[in-house]
């Protein structure tokens, strides 16, 4: 419907002059129209219409064309043609049609022929400037009324808009219009990046002479402020995003929100607000500007949360070192994301607009619209889903180690309570872990040991032991409905809580682990077993530590749940008292005998493991002691008697050898009983003999004997014959006192018979070794002399051996590859 302006049209719209007109004017109307149209030709900057219009021409930035000042005659003609507003409006509509044709022709031609890739924003701007200058200079002489002038400007602006912003290059289909910026917008974005955000990386040769004010006022004059704002927002977000990726990824051990805010305040916001102050529709005051700042910070927080969601599993594993990161995640997720903020100053309340609204209104930038979806509720849900997903992938598979899962579980509890102190998210993320833990067979043992072992080096779950110690203030947590309903501090559960959400159940680590199982009994049994073992290994009857621990457990599991353990502890305490009384009666002659007295029905885990094999004969002196003790007991505790459990307990013995050397041992009763048979007995004993004598299984006897062989007290003559190692015992003591254990280790070599032959000489080896380390080669005679000089007489008496024995020993060392012999000299084998 674009009809070029013509003389006929003008004649048609412009009424015949009145008489008055005729009298005041010497010209006829036809002539006036010709003159005016002639003046307005060609309705577009001539320089842009030249046939040789090229990239070079644009780049040369020729001064914009201006329409030359009209002559008096033309001015008169214009006045007579555009006499009143009606004439002017009709004229503008027609004039617009002419402009449209030229405008569209030009851009069609421009997009078809120009190598757009070579154009930068300043090239586009040159064209825009040329066009706007041309029309401004052309319109100024028409003396249009404000209304007509405004109409004209709007028309021209919409031509710019359709050709720069909407019009797409011929190659692009219509569908892509909403997804891709036009070349112009791309160049504008690039320009803003370089000149506004000072991105020198994008264009290190940016031209400082560029007149930003001219550029922005011009763009705003053709009504592109909304587009500039959009690009500014896009760019800001992009920059914030890459700043966060670069500066926050994997960094969880220090606060970062302040750095982010500073970055926005110093790097993003100043540029943003300067341009916004030109381009915003509203006359922005400082406080409204602050709305944009707040929104940028909020955007940054959303961005940070998105990053943290991706990292959540690692963050949890990194706990407690990630506490700072977790706390900031909590801050980002809990800051109220609404706009009360702005309403604090009443006079600003009408500025309902803000960045977030702006962004969400920009439906043609779909990725920006996502921000509105990323509300806190969405992010909380996403956080839970991501974590649960990663748990399944990384942790909750059949090959996982129970301790690792428990550790992750406790870290999850602590971390998620930071992120969400109400525990709603925690409740959701722990459910799959709890389900998994319930299937692990070893979980009870792991938890029980974790709770009771205070040794950091051996307890992989030391956190549990610490947690148990922290329990002091907590009263018994029996799960009861009555208690719940009496809770005065009751508040409704948060809206995203699951129906059976209960904070206490998930937030307390121990309670949380225990409650995986429906009944406490399984734990109580394990505690009873573990404590039973400890009480049996306890040799000073001091149950203070165990009692203290039991009291902590009672706080958790209930006071009356540990009847068996109470009886066990009482047994040990009473034994202590009784031992004092009864041993006082029977005198204190050696050996010192005392016994723990157990109520046999209440020590199942200890006594069930005993068999007939444990019922061996005691050394007679101990048997006598026990019988005396038992009869004292019977007379003291009327109606009761004792039954001895020979295999339990601990024995201190002192072995003294022929050479006055004594050694002390603390051993199990079976070992004590075995070695007692060698008392004052220099002949060898067989396994069979010992087994019969002690009524002990041969297996147990053999095990006991090899213990004493290992200690150097006995010698193994054959597999079944043993004898006291009188000399060796002396040597062993010396070895352990003066020589590095490597030597003793080497002595226990496999070839016992040869070893035995040189046993007495082995004391020489360390001296020999250090000698040869200092003097590499030594003939036998030198060796002998030096050894005599260096080895103290009380360690080895050379009078007891002859030279050939020493020589044999040295040769044996050669065979053993400790020494080697070259040219009749000994040296250390390398």
């Amino acid at each position, binding site marked *: 419907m674009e009809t070029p302006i013509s003389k006929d049209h003008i004649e048609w719209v412009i009424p015949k002059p009145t008489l008055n007109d005729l009298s005041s004017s010497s010209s006829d109307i036809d002539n006036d129209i010709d003159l005016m149209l002639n003046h307005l030709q060609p309705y577009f900057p001539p320089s842009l219409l030249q046939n040789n219009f090229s990239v070079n021409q644009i780049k040369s930035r020729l001064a914009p064309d201006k329409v030359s000042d009209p002559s008096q005659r033309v001015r008169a003609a214009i006045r007579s043609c555009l006499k009143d507003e009606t004439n002017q409006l009709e004229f503008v509509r027609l004039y617009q049609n002419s402009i449209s044709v030229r405008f569209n022709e030009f851009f069609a031609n421009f997009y078809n022929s120009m190598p757009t890739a070579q154009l930068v924003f300043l090239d586009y701007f040159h064209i825009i400037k040329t066009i706007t200058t041309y029309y401004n200079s052309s319109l100024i002489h028409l003396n249009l009324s404000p209304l007509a002038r405004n109409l004209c400007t709007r028309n021209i602006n919409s031509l710019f808009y359709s050709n720069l912003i909407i019009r797409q290059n011929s190659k692009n289909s219509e569908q892509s219009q909403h997804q891709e910026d036009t070349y112009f917008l791309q160049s504008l974005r690039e320009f803003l990046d370089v000149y506004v955000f000072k991105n020198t990386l994008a264009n290190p040769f940016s031209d400082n002479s560029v007149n930003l004010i001219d550029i922005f006022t011009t763009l705003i004059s053709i009504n592109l402020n909304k587009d500039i704002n959009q690009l500014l927002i896009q760019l800001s977000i992009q920059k914030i995003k890459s700043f966060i990726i670069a500066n926050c990824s994997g960094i969880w051990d220090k606060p970062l929100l302040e750095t982010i805010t500073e970055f926005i305040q110093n790097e993003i916001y100043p540029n943003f607000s300067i341009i916004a102050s030109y381009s915003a529709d509203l006359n922005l005051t400082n406080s409204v500007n602050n709305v944009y700042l707040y929104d940028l910070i909020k955007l940054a927080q959303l961005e940070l949360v998105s990053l943290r969601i991706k990292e959540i599993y690692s963050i949890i594993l990194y706990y407690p070192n990630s506490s700072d990161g977790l706390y900031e995640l909590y801050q980002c997720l809990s800051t109220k994301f609404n706009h009360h903020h702005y309403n604090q100053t009443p006079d600003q309340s009408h500025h309902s607009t803000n960045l977030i609204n702006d962004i969400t209104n920009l439906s043609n930038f779909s990725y920006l619209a996502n921000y509105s979806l990323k509300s806190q509720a969405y992010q909380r849900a996403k956080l839970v889903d991501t974590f649960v997903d990663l748990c399944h992938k990384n942790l909750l598979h059949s090959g996982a180690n129970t301790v690792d899962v428990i550790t992750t579980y406790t870290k999850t509890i602590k971390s998620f309570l930071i992120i969400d102190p109400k525990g709603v998210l925690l409740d959701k993320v722990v459910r799959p872990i709890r389900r998994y833990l319930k299937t692990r067979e070893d979980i009870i043992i792991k938890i029980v040991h974790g709770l009771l072992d205070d040794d950091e080096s051996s307890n992989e779950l030391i956190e549990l032991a610490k947690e148990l110690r922290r329990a002091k203030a907590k009263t018994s947590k029996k799960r009861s409905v009555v208690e719940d309903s009496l809770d005065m501090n009751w508040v409704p559960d948060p809206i995203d809580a699951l129906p059976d959400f209960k904070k206490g159940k998930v937030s307390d680590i121990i309670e949380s682990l225990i409650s995986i199982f429906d009944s406490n009994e399984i734990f109580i049994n394990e505690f009873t077993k573990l404590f039973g073992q400890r009480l*049996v290994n306890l*040799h000073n009857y001091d149950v203070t530590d165990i009692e203290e621990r039991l009291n902590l457990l009672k706080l958790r599991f209930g006071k009356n749940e540990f009847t068996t353990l*109470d*009886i066990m502890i*009482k047994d040990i305490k009473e034994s202590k008292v009784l031992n004092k009384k009864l041993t006082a009666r029977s005198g204190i002659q*050696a*050996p*010192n*005998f*005392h*016994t*723990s*007295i*157990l*109520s*046999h*029905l209440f*020590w199942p885990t200890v*006594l069930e493991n005993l068999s007939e094999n444990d019922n061996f004969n005691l*050394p007679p002196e*101990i048997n006598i*002691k*026990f019988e005396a003790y*038992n009869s004292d*007991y*019977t007379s003291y*505790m*009327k*109606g*009761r*008697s*004792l*039954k*001895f*459990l*020979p295999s*339990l*307990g*601990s*024995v*201190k*013995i*002192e*072995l*003294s*050898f*022929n050479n006055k050397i004594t050694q*002390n041992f603390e051993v199990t*009763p079976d070992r*004590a009983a075995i*070695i*007692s048979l*060698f*008392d*004052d*007995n220099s002949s060898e004993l067989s396994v069979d003999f010992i087994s019969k004598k002690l009524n002990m299984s041969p297996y147990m006897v053999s095990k006991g004997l090899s213990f004493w062989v290992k200690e150097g*007290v006995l010698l193994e003559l054959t597999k079944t014959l043993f004898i*006291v190692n*009188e000399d060796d*015992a002396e040597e062993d003591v010396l070895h352990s006192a003066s020589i590095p254990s490597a030597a003793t280790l080497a002595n226990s070599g496999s070839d016992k018979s040869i070893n035995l032959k040189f046993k007495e000489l082995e004391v020489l080896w360390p001296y020999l070794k250090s000698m040869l380390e200092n003097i590499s080669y030594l003939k036998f005679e030198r060796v002998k002399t030096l050894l005599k000089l260096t080895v103290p007489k009380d360690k080895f008496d050379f009078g007891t051996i002859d030279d050939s024995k020493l020589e044999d020993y040295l040769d044996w060392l050669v065979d053993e590859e400790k020494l080697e012999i070259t040219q009749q000299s000994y040296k250390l084998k390398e």
Partner: protein
Amino acid sequence: MKVKIVEWHGFSTWHWKLAADGDANSSAYVDELCGICRVAFDGTCPNCKYPGDDCPIVLGSGCTHNFHLHCIVKWLEQDTSKGLCPMCRQIFTYKESYPDMTEELANLKTLIDGHRVMRERYTEDNQEFEAFEEET
């Protein structure tokens, strides 16, 4: 080599001596249960937590039946027991092996004596009645 045992920390279990011969080597008595509560003697009656001194046993002397002290007291407190052993219905008496009488044992003694008095009165009445009958 001399072996000197300096100290021996052993472990034992205690048991009520039930059999008169005091055969301490036999482990058969371990399983013997109180005829009233069906719990082992070395355990506790249903009302006690700690076995042993806190919940002693009583050995029958009239018959061979033994009970937790608390169990037999509870039984004898009922008039319907008539002072009889709940297992064999003989008059219940016990071995007074404790020289120092505890309060609980004194209570048992009172109950047994009470039942004896009741029995004697009943027999006297019957005899009087019989004598009266004979007279008429």
